[in-house]
């Protein structure tokens, strides 16, 4: 080795970038935030979610209000009085949640389809911290968007229905149900993200999530018997949505928070499986 080479090698050693040891989870949160905000599909999905949820709920509330005195409408009134949030949230959030499912999936599958996952894992080779940061950042965004949508849906719908029925946050179970809807949608995003991370292909993962959320529950519900009834009650989103009801309904297998716990458990298991496979599979 020549003197010049020795000099440059020494220079490299002393000039090695240092800083604090690599334990900064905050950096990963910052990086995941940059990833999410710098892709337009994220913004559009969130916008679609809020617009669909608010728009559809407003439509339903307007129709209910308009037809209030139409003959044969009394069963609807009874349902509205018994469980006002289930009716208010049912249509708008039921549809809007699909946007959350899609977003949760593409937040992770787009890394695979675009090849970004290689850059991400070269930067964070321990992998699990990357997944944890991604899940946390997405959950936070999902929480904010869900809160905006849910409160908008609630206040707009109750305002439209005010002349016929008074629904306020101070009534028993209503605040719990509103907050329940927000946290349900937040965990739903993580549920979709976990399945996206397991399947790693956008179309396949979206198909599975949508099937789990809206196709499987009614089919299982068709099966007669108590066992089928319990299976139905413990399906992820069936259990998870109970927390957005004002009061417990006769057919419910669990209470609202219990059901939400079941949904969280499903999500936690799927996220754990996602992380377990992430460190074991070739990227």
């Amino acid at each position, binding site marked *: 080795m020549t003197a010049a080479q020795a000099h440059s090698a020494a*220079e490299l050693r002393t000039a*090695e970038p240092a800083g604090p040891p690599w334990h900064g989870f905050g*950096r990963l949160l910052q*990086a995941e935030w940059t990833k999410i905000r710098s892709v337009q599909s994220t913004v559009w999905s969130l916008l679609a979610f809020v617009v669909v949820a608010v728009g559809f709920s407003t439509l339903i509330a307007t129709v209910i209000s308009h037809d209030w005195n139409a003959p044969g409408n009394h069963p609807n009134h009874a349902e509205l009085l018994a469980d006002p949030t289930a009716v208010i949230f049912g249509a708008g959030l039921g549809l809007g949640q699909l946007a959350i499912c899609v977003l949760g999936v593409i937040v992770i599958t787009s890394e695979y389809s675009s090849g970004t996952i290689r850059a991400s894992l070269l930067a964070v080779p321990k992998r699990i911290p990357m997944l944890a940061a991604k899940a946390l950042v997405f959950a936070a965004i999902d929480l904010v968007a869900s809160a905006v949508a849910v409160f908008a849906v609630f206040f707009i719908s109750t305002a439209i229905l005010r002349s016929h029925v008074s629904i306020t946050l101070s009534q028993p179970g209503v605040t719990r149900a509103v907050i329940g809807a927000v946290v349900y949608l937040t965990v739903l995003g993580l549920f979709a993200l976990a399945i996206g991370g397991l399947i790693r292909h956008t179309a396949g993962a979206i198909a599975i999530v949508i099937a789990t959320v809206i196709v499987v529950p009614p089919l299982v519900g068709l099966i007669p018997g108590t066992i089928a009834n319990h299976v139905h009650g413990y399906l992820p989103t069936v259990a998870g949505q109970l927390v957005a009801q004002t009061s417990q309904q006769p057919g419910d297998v669990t209470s609202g928070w219990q059901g939400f716990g079941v949904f969280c458990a499903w999500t936690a298991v799927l996220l754990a499986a996602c992380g377990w496979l992430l460190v074991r599979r070739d*990227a």
Partner: protein
Amino acid sequence: MLGRVNRPGNTGAVGRGTARGQTPGLIEAHELTKRFGDKVAVDHLSFTVEPGRVTGFLGPNGAGKSTTMRLICGLDRPDAGTAAIGGLAYHQLARPLATVGALLEARSAHPGRGARNHLLFLAQTQGFPARRADEVIDLVGLRDAARKRVGGFSLGMTQRLGIAAAMLGDPRVLLLDEPGNGLDPEGIRWVRTFMRQLAAEGRTVLVSSHLMSEMSVTADHLIVIGRGKLIADASTQEFIQRSSERSVLVRTPDPARLRKLITAEGGTVASEDSADGVASLAVTGIAAPRIGELAASASVVLHELTPRVASLEEAFMELTADSVEFGDASAGAGGANRGAR
């Protein structure tokens, strides 16, 4: 254009990203093995890559070059064997991008994301300041496209973005998988100069290619693999010399006497053609100066005496053809070259 890059973050700690007692920047592969189904992509591959020079990683398509690089970077898990950088496995590196810069596949950025944001998030994972993203964008000449979405990039621009990402942490080790892909001649020359400069700065540069001609002007050292196995590990010069028999073209009007002189010295002579009483001979086994001396001592007239060196391309074809045709016979050639190191 290739000015020295500012180093990100603080400076001062010595040897971070290197295990105690290990050479910083040394890449070591030990018995690396990777199977995909029943196909063995990398087969008990061992080699080291030294800092301070450009090491060409050669092999025909499908030889296992990319897989080996992915194994070194921890993107794929080896079925057996280890890979280390400065004595550490990739996932043990404190801040990997500050030690290793890798350009593995051109497509590693989201098409809907701007080039700068791609580099920004990578910088953030390592705690590098945001200005590093701008610095490497300037380094690769992408300033005008920094805010544009990667989806609209040409292959050459994507490749430059990949090189920018690799340079983000000003790493001492660079792994570049076919960096010239998609670049125009000017871009290829730029990459070549760039790699040579990085090596001159004392960095480790491992660059894969299936183009021998490119490596002959870029690489100081060559690691050649075929079917996942090591075929040769030698300096570029040595590789050409040892891989292909050299011959000397001799033109003389007196071939019979010259032939006798050469065969007496242990050389072999093949007639190529003769015209106007002057014969062209291809002589092997004796160097050109000695042939000249022999001819002079016997007063044989020579019209031409030209050493013919095989091109790297020919040497490579010969070696890999061996490995394909005879399988294990290639181990002999590889062994000979390894012995010569």
